[in-house]
Structure formats: C-alpha cells, structure tokens
C-alpha cells in the first residue's frame, strides 16, 4: 500500500519523532516500497508463515560438522 507524506507525518507524531517536512517524502517512498513487497511476500508465503514461529536466527549448535 502507498504511504504518503501525510501518513508519515502522522506516524512519526505517534512515536514522538519530529522530521523536517522536506525529509518526509524519502521516508514515505522507502516505507511504501517495503510494505508493498511485504504484500507480495504474504501472497506467496502467508499460509506457511502462519505455521512457523518468528524465531530469530540465533544458533547454539552447528548445523553440520566442519
């Protein structure tokens, strides 16, 4: 979904972060791109994503012996 400057202004207000007006657009472009890609990922992997836990990639043991 497209995030615009007004959206970014509201979102940054929600987290108490003041950004100059002329720097809102790059943030909107960046966030829009990432959220649109996430939509694509959900379409392809959504069901499989539901079936896993959001575990970070921290390994305690090696996956193979060197």
């Amino acid at each position, binding site marked *: 979904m497209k995030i615009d400057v007004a959206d*970014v202004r509201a*979102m*940054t207000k929600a*987290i*108490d*972060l*003041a*950004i*100059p007006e002329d*720097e809102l*657009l*790059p*943030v909107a*472009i*960046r*966030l*829009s*791109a*990432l*959220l649109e*890609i*996430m939509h694509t*990922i*959900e379409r392809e*992997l959504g069901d*499989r*994503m*539901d079936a*896993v*836990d*959001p*575990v*970070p*990639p*921290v*390994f*305690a*043991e*090696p*996956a*193979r012996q*060197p």
Partner: protein
Amino acid sequence: MSIYLERIERHDGILRSYITVLADRALAQAKAAEIEIGKGNYRGVLHGIPYGVKDQLYTRGIRTTLGSRILQDFVPEQDATVIERLEAAGAILLGKHNLHEFGKGGTIDFPFGQPRNPWDISRTPASSSTGSGIAPAAGLCSGALGNDTGGSIRWPAAANGIVGLRPTFGRVSRHGGLMFGWNADTIGPMGRRVFDCAALLQAIAGHDPGDALSARVPVPDYLSALDGDLRGVRIGLIREMTWVDGMHPAVKAAMEESVRVLRSLGATVEEMSLSLAKYAVPLQMLTTDADVASVFLRKWLRTDWDRFDKGTRSRLATACLVPAPIYNRAMRARVLVRQEMLDAFKTFDALITATHLQPAPSIAKSRETVGSDTDMLERVLRRRISTWPFSGANVPAIALPNGFTDDPLPMPVSLQIASSPFSEAVVLKIAHAYEQATGWHERHPDLALTTRAQASTAA
C-alpha cells in the same frame, strides 16, 4: 610499523581510511613486541602484526566515534572483547577505521572525511566497514576487523579487492561493540589473504560471558583447514543471486572462470535455486533495521536529528515506522527464507555467488538518496541482493577477489562463498584453495598512480 605509518601519512589524506591513528602507542608496542619475541616469547602468527578496527568497537581511552558527529568525543572505558583477544595474541592496534555512520550504510556526508577506493579514488570503497576495506588493500595495515549486518564486511572486501569474512552470528563476541542489530550484527576479519582472515578469526572466535548470545560451539583450528584439498567438496551456485539482469560482464566472466577453477581443484559445482532469496533484503530491512532504529529513536533521533547524516536518519526513521504486526510477519517470513537456505546445505557443502553484481560505482552513484521508487529499487534494495540472504540466514560467508574489470583503472570483482552455521573452516578452506590457484590476492592498487593522478579531480 614505521612503514605503515609512513604510508598512512602519505596516502590517507586522500583515502581517509582512518579516523584515529595511534602512531606513538603502536610504535611503542612494536618495540615491546620486538623485545619480547627476541627473548623467545613468541605468541603466534599475530605477534607484532599491526591491525585496524572499524570505529564501532570500543577501545579503552581511545575515542570511538561510530563515524558520527554525535559521538565524535566519546571515549569508552573498556576494550571490546575482540580487542582484548587480539592484544593477548600480540597484535598491535594501529588505529580506528572510518565507516558509514553507525554502521548503517548509505552515509552521504562523512564527518571524518570522504573515504575513497584505492583502485580509483572517484569510486566508493563501499559500506559500511569502509576504512577496514581500504586500509588492508592500500597497505595501510596488515588486517582489520569489520562488522557485518547485511554485507558490511563483504561488500567493502569486494570493492577494495581483499578478503572479508562474515562469521556465523554468535561465533565472535559482540561485547564492546556498539551494535543494535541484536541477532544479525557480527564482527569479522578483513585482510589481503585468506590466511590473514583465518588467523584473525582464530584469535577472536569463541564464547564470551560478556555476550549472552555468543555460542559455546568449540572453535576449530582454522589454519589447519587451509590444506588446498577440495576433492569431494560439493558446491552449489545460487542462480538467483548470481545470473541476474544487469550483471556486469566482468563479474559474469569472473564467476564463470571461478566455477572452472573450483572444478579443476576437485570440487563439484552445480547451479541450484533459492527462490525465496529475493525477499531477504526487504525482510531484513523490516526487522533488523527496526531493531536498530528502536534503540536510536530514544537515544538520538528525537534529540539530535540534525546531527545525523541525512542518509542514515532517513533509513532509521523509515525503520522506526514499521508496524509491529508487519515486523512479526516479516520475522516469520525470514524463518522460511532461512530454512530454504539451510535445507540447501543438506545437499551442498557450500554455496557460491558473486559478492556484488557490479564493481564499485562512483561515489556519487553510491549515495542512497531516495527521491523516487527507482532510487529505492536501485540504490537501496537491488545492490544488496547478493549478500543479504546469507546474513538473514545467519550463515558464514566470505568474499575474496576473483578478477578485474577492463576499465582504464581496473576495478576488482569478487567471489562469495558461504556454508552452514559454524562452518567457517569450510568457507576458509574453499577460499584458500581458490586463492592459491588464482593469485588475485597478489594484485594491489598502485597508489602512486591512483591517488596522485586523480587528486585534483576527485569528486
């Protein structure tokens, strides 16, 4: 030591690989090492060897700036664990290396001087362990430590024609490094040769009580893995991260030749697919970037916005706005992307790609100014496609030179080799055998040509 200091004096005013040079301290330690070795107390291959570190690692009593105006006067009261371990091995800290602000990549205005590529000073030396890539390449230190979240060791290694290893997250202690990518940031070695990286890794690897996420996995003998024997080694070449539209012809040619060399050394190499690798960059930006930004929001974004570099603050602000459910969904997707790669290691001992699809671009072209969707795609997402999948999966990956372009000032291109978690010995073994068979590591930039000739026309 004196030779390094003289070269820094002569060339680093242009290259800007160092933020802080510890000349007197290093000379004194070199003298002490000389005496100690003379008395028969030789600590090993790193004894007396000068190294530098990305100015993201704490050094007691020595300023640690993170490449930022915000921390330009910060002096830690402790050494990072990796610094302590290298000191114990007898290595000598020569200085703190320049970097992209806070290790984020995309810095537009460097407060400590614009770093430049020693092969062509109009080009970027890449990010974010910038100075740690320049200095070994230019002969301004013997080796370096960088830090890699998505590619910040491997891309500077590729751009500067040296070797850089991203270890498995947890292999090397993060204690004493200002790194907020809490499950992605990893410190690793950079140097002209695979041996240099293996020696540095040997000294710094291993569990540290100071880092709760450092692994208790035993540290093998990395140097003994450098035996040149690749018979029976099974290598997969990741199609989606290598044969990509827009790949530079020199990168393509170098990869084709690299495959031939690896086969001649006894390895099997076959193409394979990781269909989900294309999602690694956005997924990590929606998660790791958000982890980092959540700390910066309170620390400095709210209070010191103007003191951040413009590129850094734009990226951090974006990451601050990732909604929590999106973060959660992205972490789930990362599990699937990661598992696809880990499954590949059931068939292959190692996976290879080009480290970067293009040689280092001009400094102007490398700046991550985002004014359009095209900028976002080309300057932010696409250029990260070949390194971030390995970071997202948390597997070790090494970059080493595998050729040059045919530009008037030839630029290095690079091969990337990855293996399963804690298999650094495997990547070092393959990299070393390849290196010894090809000799690319013996080619160094002619600084008399590249720095003097272009000093007057530098951007």
